[in-house]
């Protein structure tokens, strides 16, 4: 029976090969575990990293002559066409992030004070919204906010306004659509961070004579501020790349960086300029992401 063991089966030759001295560790073996990563690395390297590098390279090439140039970036920086779009994108990103923080924080805070069942319902709504296709949600706003949409009909029927309020096809419409898409990205991490705050702190603060108001501003808010900051940055990052919402709700008047890239690729073939702008967007995103990671660590 005992001969059936694995060691008994080892062939001497193989066994000898394996008993070479410890230098074997350095004899060109791949670092441990690297093979597992290799297939994905190849694919991502080919279909993600290489294209990004090529984009970076094309941004430094003149479209007509094919020579090295910084002209594409100069064009972005100097033109009164491209830079304003970059600024508008940043501005809308900030507005949207502020708005998300402003309406997201109270909701998340309210949710922490709800019963378990209330929390489940609220979370279900948020998660549902989160997973419903952005196209569907953006599309719905046309129906809701249009001149003959439910909101305007309500406003006019209630006599609050006589002519329909122009929600759509301007920056307001784009912002509303973006806030709706991005709010769950604010709510979910913020709510999670608020749940981390030890509920006993509240009781302790009360025993020390703090009011609800004082507890909130002196304890709770400072404790959740890093999370608020981190999600704020996250929303800004995501806002920078928005394409669908401005395309559908902007009425052609609110192009953001992504829409400009679409024009430069799909309407005018200006790849090198597009590459340069896409690189600007990349730098903005990565820069914000570094801040985000830093805030997360603080949290």
């Amino acid at each position, binding site marked *: 029976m005992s001969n059936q063991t694995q060691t008994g089966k080892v062939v001497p030759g193989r066994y000898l090969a394996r008993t070479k001295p410890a230098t074997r560790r350095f004899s060109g073996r791949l670092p441990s*575990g690297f093979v597992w990563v290799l297939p994905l690395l190849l694919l*991502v390297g080919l*279909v993600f990293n290489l294209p990004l590098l090529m*984009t970076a390279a094309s941004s430094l090439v003149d479209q007509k002559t094919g020579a090295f140039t910084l002209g594409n970036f100069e064009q972005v920086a100097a033109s009164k066409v491209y830079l304003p779009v970059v600024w508008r994108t940043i501005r809308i990103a900030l507005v949207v992030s502020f708005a998300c923080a402003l309406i997201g924080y109270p909701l998340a805070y309210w949710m922490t004070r709800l019963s378990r069942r209330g929390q489940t319902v609220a979370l279900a709504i948020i998660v549902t919204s989160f997973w419903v*296709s952005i*196209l569907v949600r*953006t599309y719905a706003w046309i129906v809701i906010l249009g001149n003959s949409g439910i909101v305007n009909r309500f406003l006019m029927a209630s006599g609050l306004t006589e002519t329909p309020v122009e929600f759509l096809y301007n920056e307001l419409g784009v912002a509303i659509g973006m806030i709706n898409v991005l709010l769950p990205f604010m709510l979910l991490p913020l709510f999670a961070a608020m749940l981390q705050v030890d509920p006993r702190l509240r009781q302790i603060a009360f025993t020390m004579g703090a009011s609800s108001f004082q507890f909130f501003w002196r304890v709770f808010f400072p404790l959740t501020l890093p999370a608020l900051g981190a999600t704020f940055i996250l929303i800004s990052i995501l806002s920078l790349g928005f394409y669908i919402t401005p395309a559908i709700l902007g009425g052609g008047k609110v192009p953001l960086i992504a829409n400009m890239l679409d024009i430069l690729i799909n309407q005018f073939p200006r790849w090198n300029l597009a590459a340069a702008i896409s690189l600007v967007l990349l730098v903005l995103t990565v820069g914000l992401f570094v801040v985000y990671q830093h805030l997360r660590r603080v949290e």
Partner: protein
Amino acid sequence: MNAHLVAARRRERWRRLPLATVGILVLLFLALPILVVVPMSFSSAESLRFPPPGLSLRWYEAFFSDPLWLEAALNSLIVGISSSTIALGLGTLAAYGIVRGTFWGRGALETNFISPMILPPVIIAVALYIFYARIGILGNYLALIAAHVVIAVPYVVLLMTLAIRSFDIRVEQVALTLGASRWQMMTRVLMPNLLPNAAAAWLFAFVISFDEVVVTLFVSGTHLTIPKRMFNQLVLQINPTITAIATILICFSLAAVALAAWLNRGNGFVSKADGEGH
């Protein structure tokens, strides 16, 4: 005493009223698009009136009798299933290497694999457009699937690294000392335990691929997918058929995500089982 308590409770409730109002309004704001789209899909009217004047299934019929929508649905399914399956395979292997490997630069690799999730899709779209165009595979079906793999794989890598990290490495080591080859360990020990997580990761990847618009718009060439056709239609002509598709999509996404969440609920069940003694 009791009356005091009741009064105190009532005061407390009044104090919270402004907060509750804001909370409910914001939740309504989130839910509104869905609340509007779903009933409209059953509308009998041509226009996008809300509430619908009458009920019918005509827009569902319109969807299922339109060969272009069906072609788009078929493509979405093919691209979604193949890209999420590839993403699951490669992503799981990579997650294993990242968690259990000892080579240098694992953190950087993980960031690299996850970054397509963080970067604006339009950057990836532009980069892939230029790259695919240069090598002449713009509009190629396999190239489209490859793009979707890159977009879906971060979710797999995230979920699977989490799952593998929470799986006791000693169980793997014991399996090896008990005579299992690395392959036997993977197939007989690791995978059976990670199966729910893998299924969840697959579903997430599938939903991501199925919903993808921007990159698809740039690189898909002649191939239609549901979101691509939806986007084109939204820009072209607003047609209630879209509400029917939207409703189908909502149900579909929610079912998939609910299933995924349910499958992933036991992310800690392994550690719970062997962690009792700790």
